[in-house]
């Protein structure tokens, strides 16, 4: 399996991802990784419904994502991986999937989170996961859409 792109976006598949990112990243599959969403049949069905034509989409648990990455059956996959949060990314990386760069697109604001850009808010657990990903040498770049300039996430969370 080829890793086309890795994105954190808590809306997972939505208009922007389906219309713009899919074309920019030239992927042929979308794998949305979330234990929570994979267990939620309605949310899962609705997400799969909006996947763009010609691109197979899957919503899977973290364990399943790692297993699928290592399965030679999926050698022709050029996968756009979607996550809702950095802790899940970290678990997949620790499971042996070699992400080099992670795009941080949208993590919406909730009570108790700190807003670091217009589209990205983080809590303590997110910060810890981002730091661990950074220590592993993984690029962390904030961009809502493909044409935005990359913003280095680590520079935005220094001192937090």
């Amino acid at each position, binding site marked *: 399996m080829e890793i086309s792109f890795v994105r954190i976006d808590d809306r997972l598949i939505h208009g*922007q991802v389906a219309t713009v990112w899919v074309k*920019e990243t030239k992927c042929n599959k979308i*794998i949305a990784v979330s234990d929570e969403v994979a267990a939620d049949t309605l949310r899962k*069905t609705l997400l799969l*419904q909006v996947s763009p*034509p010609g691109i197979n989409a899957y919503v899977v648990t973290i364990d*399943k994502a790692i297993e699928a990455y290592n399965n030679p059956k999926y050698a022709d996959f050029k996968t756009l991986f979607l996550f809702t949060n950095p802790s899940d990314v970290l678990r997949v990386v620790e499971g042996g999937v070699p992400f080099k760069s992670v795009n941080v697109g949208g993590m919406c604001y909730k009570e108790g989170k700190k807003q670091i850009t217009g589209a990205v808010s983080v809590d303590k657990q997110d910060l810890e996961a981002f730091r661990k990903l950074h220590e592993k040498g993984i690029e962390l770049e904030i961009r809502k*859409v493909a044409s*935005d300039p990359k913003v280095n996430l680590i520079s935005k969370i220094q001192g937090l």
Partner: protein
Amino acid sequence: MIGVIVGTHGRFSEELLRSTSMVYGQLENVVGVTFEPGESVNGLVDKFKIALGTIEWSDGVLFLVDLFGGSPYNAASRIAAGYENMDIVSGVNLPMVVDVLVSRSTEQLEDLVKLAIRAGQDSMKSFRTVREIQTEEEL
């Protein structure tokens, strides 16, 4: 680069481009032209000409307008009739604009026109119909 001009009744074109940038990001070489109540088609032709002056269109121009046969369409057609490398697609909607912007760097005008029409048509779907034909594949 193919220049894109969106022309509509009222301020729809401006707002449509604002919506486009939410999905696509910063817009380049695309401009909106509005047709306000009381304006003449001649005035609209002039507005389109002014718009042409603000964009780069060495590879052609694609006009995206709202109503087939409406004033923006008619005014654009008076300009496009004089050039080989211009075309007009009516029925403009958000998926059409986004798809055109995503694809225009790699497509010729003729293909971009086909793609715009397909994007517009394909975007119309019913939730219930999609759900009925949906089949889930497992990894």
